[in-house]
């Protein structure tokens, strides 16, 4: 399926890649290894998966606000996702993406139509997601 989905643009920029979908929230501090971009929280569904170059979809961040700096470190190490989509975003994800130049949107109309592995383009400035 193809389509354009409206969203709320939060952090400007254009990012594209395959969708990686996390049903549960994520704690960047302790949950993601900033050296290799893998999810290292053993209790998380996506344990072992890499978020590098993905369009990473998760409900929102939990845990320490230091998570924002982990997002920054992921970017510095070139292991960051190419864009992030949240159900309803939060201060940690927003500030982490803002200092790392990672496009971010939330409140996507029809998010449930997007499946794991779909090719997506995220426009963080104008607030939309393209599935192609």
């Amino acid at each position, binding site marked *: 399926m193809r389509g354009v989905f409206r969203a709320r643009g939060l952090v400007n920029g254009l990012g594209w890649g395959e969708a990686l979908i996390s049903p549960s929230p994520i704690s960047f501090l302790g949950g993601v290894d900033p050296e290799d971009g893998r999810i290292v929280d053993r209790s998380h569904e996506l344990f072992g998966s890499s978020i590098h170059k993905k369009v990473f979809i998760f409900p929102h961040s939990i845990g320490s606000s230091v998570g924002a700096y982990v997002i920054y*470190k992921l970017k510095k190490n070139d292991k960051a996702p190419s864009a992030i989509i949240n159900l309803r975003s939060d201060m940690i994800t927003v500030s982490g993406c803002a200092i790392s130049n990672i496009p971010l949107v939330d409140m996507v109309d029809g998010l449930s139509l997007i499946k794991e592995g779909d090719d997506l383009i995220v426009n963080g400035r104008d607030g939309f997601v393209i599935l192609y």
Partner: protein
Amino acid sequence: MVIHLYLTNYEERALNGEYGEALEMAYRILLSVGRLTDASRLIEISSAHLSGVSYSTIGEHGREFLESFSLNAKVSIPTTVNPAGIDPKNPSDFGIHDDYISEQMKIVRSYKKLGVTESFTCTPYEVAHPPPKGNHVSWAESSASIYANSILDLRTNRESALSALASAVTGKTPYSELHIDEFRKPSLSIHVDIDELSGSMKFGLLGYFAGKMARGPMALQGIKSPTSSESKALCAAIGTSGASGMFLIKDKVDAERVKFDRGDLERTYDELNDAEEGDAIVLGCPHLGLNEIYDISDSVEGKKFNKRCLLFCSRRVYEEAKLRGYTDKIEGAGADFICSTCAVFTPIISHLEVDVIATNSCKAAHYLKRAQNVRVSLKETHEILKEVCG
């Protein structure tokens, strides 16, 4: 509905990098946070207070970000900063590991480079004159932002380290939430059904209970006007247990009512207290003010502490208390002052190698248990002093 955040021409140009990387990043943070909180524009503010100073809280990644950001950035308005993990003036005290000292001092240097006031305190309102009532500010450190909204009649959201930093550099903040009159109305009223609630620990217990109940602004009914010490404890505890950013002390409020009675007080106490007696005493969360140091000096003068006692305050308040002769009396009784350092997020606590800390602070009790793996004996200051300095 998506609200459009309007930027001026100047703000657009800054966002596009025309005035350098630091302003570009600062405006990107404000724009993003503004969109998240449904702001319609940015407004000017008169001061900023930054969290994210202790190496124990921001770690190596935070240190690395600040080193890079401070290369080309300067604050544009009066800006105070939170306590560090050790006293930047006496980093070698307490035998803290060299690596920790080195990392902490890099963070301190980054903030100096940014041009902040080197306050290193969670009570900025006690070291510098706060702006006049009604002013918009951008304060991080939840206890300080709740104090700003509720006691000083300033307007701030509960900012994060990064949003407050962006505000310090730009002099602006998103016009949203607690900056706007209609969002400052209490949505919940806590009715205190206890005769003459007094003491900073008990006000802390009220705050810890209230913070869990309220998401937004709240009214507190049935209490006397708190002293400055009680106010600090109340604000700190509200900030610890929940997301609310302000309270009003007001008896007639049109909002949902929740009762706080003696049973609630005791249940909240039992949740935070898990030991009879402390092996060491920690006071100063939030940092002690001049009046609190005076009260301590008055009750310990000529006596001796029989346990290790650490008192946390800002250097500015310490100097003032020293001039007035308060600190000599306290140090003479065997207690130690630690300036510019957070009472909780510091390696000094684990260096004490004790199992139980006695404190009057609900905020400290909450975080000491989680971050320092110690048990906590929670009591009013005068009760603690009576036990250990008789």
